[in-house]
């Protein structure tokens, strides 16, 4: 079982060749790659061994685990996560206590430098790390050992990526991100509250195909998922440009699906692919459902962006179309006035010349 490729496992589960290639194409599209790499992705998934994966939970709410477990689209993505060799995941594994600890220790010992660690939740540093202990070990000691010896660590969700809610002021437990806790580890951040399953799947597929983690921004986030601003891909953007804003929950503009900027939407300062891949089988995402984005994938969003209902100050371009129209009218009026003045001057000049005669 362990040494089988991913595709052989999928075919046992009744996944057809066509479904498999459709999945490879979806992954290429999510990664922002050309369709020419689809065969490369397919080849990698067919031939390479399933990666060993351990999933650690620290100061978490299991929301990222839920996000992965409940995802249904693409269905194969769920299976991809199902058929990686997931050796340790507290919420879903069968062994408890010492047997659970052994599963983790075995991977770290037997596959040192070859396994992928996925971390959910922040790591408390205050008071010697006592605020999160598993099997008598502190989260910081576990992270140093497990992430420090991993091929790569994927920090899922905003807590593991940036500290998230536990690190929000006054940060009672001294919570930090995985990268802050284990600076020497290779960490890729997939923030979001929770992480979007499709971004995690695409990251794993990228690694299996190219043998490297995808290109990241300065926050350690992969560009394919976090390279574009929510505001620029938002379906309500035309209303922002036209100056059509929701002013009160349930008002006429809210019913018509106008822009939520005045209600505190943080889309203008948030980078994620929510508007394009969406959630719940691509059904919807917060703004589509009628609530502003609260910037869950931005560093320290709970403190840096203000209350989720306070309007972001100074976002340029709000209602620029109406402004342009007003300026246009003003220019036209000025031009008309200029014509009138010119005509009057000319008329008076003519009159003066006539008088001379």
């Amino acid at each position, binding site marked *: 079982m362990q040494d089988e490729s991913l595709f052989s496992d999928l075919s046992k589960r009744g996944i057809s060749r066509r479904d498999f290639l459709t999945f490879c194409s979806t992954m290429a599209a999510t990664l922002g790659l050309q369709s020419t790499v689809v065969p490369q992705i397919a080849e990698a998934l067919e031939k390479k061994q399933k990666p060993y994966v351990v999933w650690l*939970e*620290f*100061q978490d*709410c*299991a*929301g990222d685990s839920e996000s992965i477990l409940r995802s249904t689209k693409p269905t194969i993505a769920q299976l991809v996560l199902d058929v990686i060799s997931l050796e340790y995941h*507290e*919420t*879903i*594994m*069968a*062994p*408890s*206590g010492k047997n*659970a*600890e052994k599963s983790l220790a075995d991977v770290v010992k037997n596959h040192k430098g070859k396994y992928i660690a996925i971390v959910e939740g922040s790591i*408390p540093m205050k008071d010697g790390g006592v*605020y*999160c*202990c*598993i*099997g*008598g070990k502190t989260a910081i000691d576990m992270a140093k050992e497990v992430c420090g010896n991993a091929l790569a660590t994927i920090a899922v969700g905003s807590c593991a990526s940036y500290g998230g*809610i*536990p690190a*929000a*002021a*006054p*940060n*009672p*437990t001294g*919570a930090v991100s995985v990268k802050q806790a284990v600076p020497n580890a290779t960490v890729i951040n997939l923030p979001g*509250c929770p992480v979007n399953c499709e971004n995690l799947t695409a990251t794993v597929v990228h690694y299996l195909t190219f043998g490297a983690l995808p290109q990241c921004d300065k926050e350690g986030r992969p560009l394919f998922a976090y390279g574009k601003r929510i505001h620029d891909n938002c379906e309500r953007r035309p209303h922002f440009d036209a100056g059509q804003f929701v002013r009160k929950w349930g008002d006429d503009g809210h019913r018509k699906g106008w822009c939520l900027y005045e209600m505190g939407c943080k889309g203008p300062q948030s980078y994620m692919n929510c508007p394009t891949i969406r959630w719940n089988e691509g059904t919807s995402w917060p703004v589509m459902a009628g609530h502003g984005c*609260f910037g869950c994938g931005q560093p320290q969003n*709970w403190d840096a962006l203000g*209350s*989720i*209902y*306070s309007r972001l100050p100074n976002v340029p371009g709000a209602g620029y179309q109406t402004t342009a129209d007003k300026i246009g009218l003003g220019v036209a009026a000025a031009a008309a006035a200029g014509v009138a003045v010119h005509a009057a001057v000319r008329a008076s000049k003519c009159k003066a010349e006539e008088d001379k005669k």
Partner: protein
Amino acid sequence: MAKIAIDPLTRIEGHLRIEAQIEGGKVVDAWSSSTMWRGIELIVKNRDPREVWALLSRI
């Protein structure tokens, strides 16, 4: 008389440690500890009350 500890207790949401005192094959006393704390009660203090649902729903 023996004392056993199960930590981590898996297949639950959150972190839990169970200790039990055993005498003659029977559990005579037991203790449970939640081994993780974030202080969300302190984090929501002095925040805009309208946004507290968003933090507390992520407990």
